[in-house]
């Protein structure tokens, strides 16, 4: 099919809007000092922390998000529509507000926080765990919404056939639902990881900005922007490179898995 020529104009505008800011970032970069700036101890620490926390958050999303998507798509519970809307909440909520909400739940004066401290002696705010929680909070919808859509599109026919072949519900989930969903899970995880990597607002309000424990790359870039612009730009480029790496390296492999 030939595309209508008219589509190319707005499409080009969209590409410009996505790509030109990165060009702007590159144009502001001092290429000679770049290796030195991105290998500074603060940048390396932040990079390592970002990768670790984002990977953990992605893992958390996988463990709880896949079952949630299946429940949302296949469940017959009352109040499921409300639950579906709730999953969208982190997408529409400004991340800073999400961070505040987490703080008032799990902070020292929040009821969840008091409970945790009294029962287990754990304080979450301003720890690396808080970074992971903030990232999980904002990134979860990216996995769940994609998976729920894929499950609905696929329909429950394969699952019904599996049941008539004698598969009990958990066997159906393990041997039919999940394998059929793998391509969607893969692409969902890439999006989730990328979102967690870029997370800023919820992290800074709930976890703070402490080098080594909660200062991820976006937080470092923000901090440096106020004092050392060259370093900030270098760190930002590092973030862009990391995000592009994840998307381009992992995504094609994920898509290959589909029939």
């Amino acid at each position, binding site marked *: 099919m030939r595309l209508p020529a008219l589509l190319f104009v707005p499409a080009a505008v969209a590409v410009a809007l996505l790509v030109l800011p990165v060009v702007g970032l590159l144009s502001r970069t001092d290429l000679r000092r770049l290796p030195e700036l991105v290998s500074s101890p603060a940048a390396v620490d932040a990079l390592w922390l970002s990768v670790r926390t984002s990977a953990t958050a992605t893992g958390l999303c996988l463990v709880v998000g896949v079952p949630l998507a299946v429940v949302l798509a296949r469940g017959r519970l009352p109040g499921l529509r409300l639950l579906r809307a709730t999953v969208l909440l982190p997408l529409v909520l400004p991340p800073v507000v999400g961070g505040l909400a987490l703080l008032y739940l799990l902070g020292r004066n929040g009821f969840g926080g008091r409970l945790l401290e009294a029962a287990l002696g754990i304080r979450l705010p301003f720890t690396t765990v808080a970074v992971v929680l903030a990232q999980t909070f904002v990134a979860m919808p990216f996995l769940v919404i994609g998976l729920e859509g894929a499950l609905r599109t696929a329909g429950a*026919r*394969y699952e*019904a*056939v*599996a*049941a*008539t*072949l*004698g*598969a*009990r*519900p958990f*066997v*159906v989930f393990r*041997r*039919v639902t999940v*394998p*059929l969903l*793998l391509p969607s899970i893969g692409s969902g995880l890439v999006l989730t990881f990328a979102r967690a990597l870029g997370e800023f607002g919820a992290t800074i309000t709930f976890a703070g900005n402490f080098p080594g424990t909660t200062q991820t790359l976006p937080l470092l870039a923000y901090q440096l922007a106020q004092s050392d612009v060259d370093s900030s730009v270098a760190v930002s480029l590092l973030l862009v490179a990391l995000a592009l790496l994840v998307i381009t390296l992992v995504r094609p492999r994920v898509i290959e898995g589909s*029939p």
Partner: protein
Amino acid sequence: MTGLAVDVVARRGGFALDVRMEVASGEVVAVLGRNGAGKSTLLSVLAGLVRPETGHIALAGRVLTDTGRRVHVPPHRRGVGLLAQDPLLFPHLSVLANVAFGPSCLGASRRQSEDAARHWLSEVDAVGLAGRRRWQLSGGQAQRVALARALAAEPDLLLLDEPFAALDVDAAPALRAMTRRVLRGASRTALLVTHDPLDALVLADRVIVLSEGRLVEQGPTRSVLARPRTRFSAGVAGLNLIAGTAGPHGLATPDGTRLAGLRQEPVTDGDPVVGVFAPSAVAVHVRRPHGSPRNVFPALVAGLEPHGDVIRLRVAATPGLDWVEGLAADVTPAAVADLALEPGTMVWLAVKATEVAVHPAPSRA
């Protein structure tokens, strides 16, 4: 009894299925009916995918559903297999693993499951396909594998939902013959939903006809198709059917038209009856004919379609003769050209009284 006994009422939206039927062990029953007659709902209820509102289902001596005692055996423990129009082979598994799926769910080891899978693949002449994936199979091959997969789960009842409808005309006969072999060979209990009278004739011992969620006709396949009592089963058998009440001459339609016909069984005047005749028994004229045919009535040509070597004419009613709507007449292509027949042409249909068979009608026709 060790077969299937069903007595259920199920609702889906505004539609209600209300069916009571039995299938003997080893018997194959064809379920006929228009779209929306409740055939799929019946299969879903039997497979346990839809819960009936009230009722009772027993299969091979086990109670599968009993709403009175709140019994609802889940699909995976019912022993009811399903073969749909779409083979629905699991795309992430090889053919062998697809067929081994059922046995492994029943607790067989990997090796036992694969042995069973090979056995069932050989039953459908598909051993050579064992290593393939779904997208490397033709439609007929995929449906054969799906049949093997359903059988490998050793169901007490096999549900076949228009299993040949999506196949090429070349592939359908071979698969029909294959299905007949595996169903008859092991004398399996099966329910076959179909639109094709050939499926029913080749595979089924008995036919039931559903209309608006109710069982309106049942009997041995050959007699239902040879002597249909409802317009639907007449349509399936390719026959014309007119409902009315019995009279000394034959039958009278609701608007009072008298049709001459021959009674096939004793009936009392005034009883509901149906007159059945083949499209090939209908002569088509552009002017009112005079001669021996006793039944002559006007109609409008609604459509023309090729039907083997002849052209099948569908007619619409003229005002006041509603029962004419939808009747079929077979004419030669030469006659279509000679009479200049096209949609909208007014014609006279003539049927000899000896061609109209009058049968007692079921109470709901």
